């Protein structure tokens, strides 16, 4: 770990501005760190040559006095964002070798603001998973180690992004969050992850999983770095009918100061049965920190929380089953060699998709089928509305909600694999905010008895990311989370 890779984005921007170092130097330091951390499998595709080119261009741009919001900052890009001329796989065999001839709006915005792409970060296949083990290209490994040095999952689906930021091989990373895919891996890897309001970032050029839930977001090591990144990538896009035509505020400017007059809601339904004592403890700790910062704690109720997970596992697979129909072997990606059309379809999709993707396509196809549609899909849509109403009612009484991010710390690779339902339970605290479309952030709050990071989640009002950043900043300050992942601590020692 060099000094350059340990910088925050904010400090790196300052250093670049002061000519303490160049973007090329900053980028090279991260490429080098990435080479040393290859065993974490954070990337599906590394783009070091392109990164250096981008860094050179960025240095030139800065020299001309034309610096963008993220000028010269090297980032990992989740391999769900289409990148012009660079393989984009969604961690699926079916898209292996696919090079888009277009750029996603999120990456286009980031590049326009000067950021440098280090590579395409590994993820669960089509963002379906909570452990990164469904990636066709091998699972990402968490830089934090379990007891006896056991390899742990980084969480998912944005596991490569979270792991890369935690391991200091990228200063920040893009993620996407459909049911917790940013917040849960952020918690597992001890970094901060932000899922903004649905519609804040364009979905154009992002490989779709569940269109009504998918939302791009950020990973970085501080709350403020997330704020800087989000400002650079968000914004209205005429190419996405669901992107909101709203001004993008300077999120970082909303941070700082105490929380006097702010009300923090504690939803009682998030005290689930069998929640580990350590999760309970960190939550209590978080509540105390909020009080210390001057906030008022308010008990609130989100009565439909218990229906969130089943609702999510109807709506998300339903949309996925349709969104993934385009991967048919006809126009791009993997095609099985068969002479009869229906055989080609079947074999292409049987060989191209992994088990979890197939499972969700089957579930989705089932819930949309004639005779089941009303009982499952329509019902789920109604419940989804009730879940949103729960949040809106709670925000009558408070400004943000504070909850744990995940029901456990990072678990070992291979754990929970035997039982999909058990795996789905990882998302129990993150899924409701996804269904409601409201912004949510995970901030590292402390370590459990095994020395593994635990995250707390702040859930805000629709479009009020500024409040989430403000409260997140206060939580970060109180928690003062400075622990290093084991892979780095070992080197530092």
């Amino acid at each position: 770990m060099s000094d350059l890779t340990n910088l925050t984005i904010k400090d790196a921007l300052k250093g670049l501005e002061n000519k303490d170092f160049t973007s090329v130097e900053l980028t090279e330091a991260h490429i080098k760190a990435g080479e040393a951390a290859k065993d974490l499998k954070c990337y599906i595709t590394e783009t070091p040559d392109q990164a250096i080119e981008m860094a050179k261009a960025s240095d030139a741009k800065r020299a001309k006095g034309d610096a963008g919001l993220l000028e010269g900052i090297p980032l990992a890009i989740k391999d769900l964002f289409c990148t012009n001329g660079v393989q984009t796989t969604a961690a699926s065999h079916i898209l292996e070798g696919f090079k888009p001839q277009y750029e996603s709006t999120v990456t286009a915005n980031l590049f326009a603001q000067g950021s440098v792409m280090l590579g395409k970060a590994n993820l669960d296949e089509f963002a379906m998973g909570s452990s990164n083990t469904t990636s066709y290209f091998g699972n990402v490994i968490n830089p934090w180690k379990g007891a006896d040095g056991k390899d742990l999952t980084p969480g998912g689906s944005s596991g490569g992004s979270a792991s890369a930021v935690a391991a200091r091989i990228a200063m920040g990373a893009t993620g996407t969050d459909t049911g917790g895919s940013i917040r849960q891996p952020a918690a597992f890897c001890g970094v901060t992850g932000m899922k903004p309001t649905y519609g804040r970032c364009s979905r154009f050029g992002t490989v779709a999983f569940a269109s009504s839930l998918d939302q791009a977001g950020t990973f970085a090591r501080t709350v403020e770095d997330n704020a800087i990144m989000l400002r650079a990538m968000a914004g209205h896009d005429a190419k996405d009918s669901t992107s909101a035509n709203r001004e993008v505020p300077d999120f970082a400017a909303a941070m700082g100061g105490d929380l006097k007059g702010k009300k923090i809601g504690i939803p009682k339904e998030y005290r689930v049965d069998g929640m580990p004592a350590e999760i309970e403890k960190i939550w209590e700790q978080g509540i105390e920190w909020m009080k210390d910062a001057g906030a008022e704690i308010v008990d609130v109720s989100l009565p439909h929380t218990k229906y969130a997970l089943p609702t999510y596992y109807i709506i998300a697979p339903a949309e996925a089953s349709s969104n993934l129909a385009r991967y048919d072997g006809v126009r791009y990606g993997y095609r099985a060699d068969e002479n009869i059309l229906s055989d080609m379809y079947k074999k292409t999709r049987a060989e191209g998709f992994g088990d979890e993707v197939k499972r969700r396509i089957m579930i989705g196809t089932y819930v949309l089928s004639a005779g089941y549609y009303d009982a499952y899909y329509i019902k789920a849509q109604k419940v989804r509305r009730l879940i949103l109403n729960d949040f809106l009612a709670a925000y009558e009484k408070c400004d943000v909600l504070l909850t744990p991010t995940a029901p456990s710390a990072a678990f070992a690779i291979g754990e929970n694999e035997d039982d999909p339902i058990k795996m789905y339970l990882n998302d129990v605290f993150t899924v409701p905010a996804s269904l409601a479309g409201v912004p949510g952030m995970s901030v590292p709050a402390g370590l459990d008895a095994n020395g593994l990071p635990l995250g707390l989640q702040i859930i805000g009002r629709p479009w009020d990311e500024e409040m989430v950043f403000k409260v997140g900043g206060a939580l970060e300050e109180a928690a003062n989370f400075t622990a290093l992942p084991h892979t780095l601590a070992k080197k530092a020692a």
Partner: protein
Amino acid sequence: MAYLIEGETGKWEVVIGMEVHAQVSCNSKLFSGAATAFGAEPNSQVSLIDAAMPGMLPVLNEYVVEQAVRTGLGLKAQVNNMSVFERKNYFYPDLPQGYQISQMVYPIVGKGEIEVDLSDGTTKTIGITRLHLEQDAGKSMHDQHPTKSFVDLNRSGCALMEIVSEPDIRSPEEACAYLNKLRMILRYLGTCDGNMEEGSMRADVNISVRKPGDELGTRAEIKNVNSVKAVQMAIDYEVRRQIELIEDGGTVVQETRLWDPNKGVTRSMRGKEDAHDYRYFPDPDLLPLHVSNDQIESIKATLPELPDDKKHRFMDGYGLSLYDASVLIAERHRADYYETVANDNDTKLAANWVINELLGILNKNEKTLVESPISAEQLAGLIKLISDNTISGKIAKDVFAIMYETGDDADKVVEEKGLKQVTDTGAIEAVIDKVIAANPGQVEAYRGGKDKLFGFFVGQVMKETQGKANPAAVNELLKKKLG
């Protein structure tokens, strides 16, 4: 007169509903900016969205929405303030997304109606159930390679209006009249060019038979009926097939059948048991479509006069017969042409000239009105010469023939050829005197009671004047002179 088919067991009634797919006249597609021109090189008009590349999202074309609203208003239909695009899921190589974006539960246009004119001089109102917007599919090409099929995505994503009728149609004639009238309305509105040969208008026909007064029978849906004539033939065939099937003790099964224009038969394409489960659900990439009353009103304000309104105005205002009015309003351009001719002229005379002379000769020469060498203003000039007695109707036909050849104005032709009508009574009298003198026998016979010979004298006078004598003056003077 009810159209009933005589079977072995008695009379049968035919019940028909139509689903017409009309491609919206628009330079770009329903959800992408790609071009829509007909006949372009394969795959030259395909955007990333039309090819369903990963991460691509549909963005609704506002002009198409306007066109659908315009069509709804033209069909005197309810335009819905809120409609929803849904996905119809199925796999086919010419359907890149793996689903067609269509409207299911909430279409943009609801109930409306069309008035059709029938050959017995009656009119009938056919109900419109709904109109919805949807994407067209691409085209599979199986004749390009011995072992492979190719796909052309030019049509993929083009905007279609599916216009569904109530099962109000009771005969092949009504079906054809419905299709013709619908096409006429769409062309008036400029929302679809109605070109069935190019596939921009396609019809599916739902057919069932029953004994008059019975419940509706089981229907078969006939696809690939791509001309008005084919509609007539497909119905004739299918009705016969169903009646014979039932009378032989069989039952009609609900199925999709394909019209084979070469063999002149319908054949089963897929039965109900093979029907797809399309798993419709609202497209999460698109928000519900809202059209405000203000938007509807402002589109309404731009509507042209519709065929039926025009027809009634031509009958009431110009005193035309239903037949003449119907012929003239068949195309918007034709009606405009007529009105230019009729302006400041005898409206019925103008109708006669447009229908019998102009359309007659154009039809004979296989030309359309747009290609007419005689402009509406020129034809109006010719009729004016008839009305003010400059030339006779008979001479006018000669002038017309010359105008058609040369494209000259009537005035010029009349002037150059010296065809001006003689109305000078002195000149006509002189000719009459000459004729009487030259035909003493006929004069005697006429005066002896052979009244029919009057026409002979008229003919002689006309011959002498090369047809230029005013017929009324000739009649009057002849009567006087012959006593």
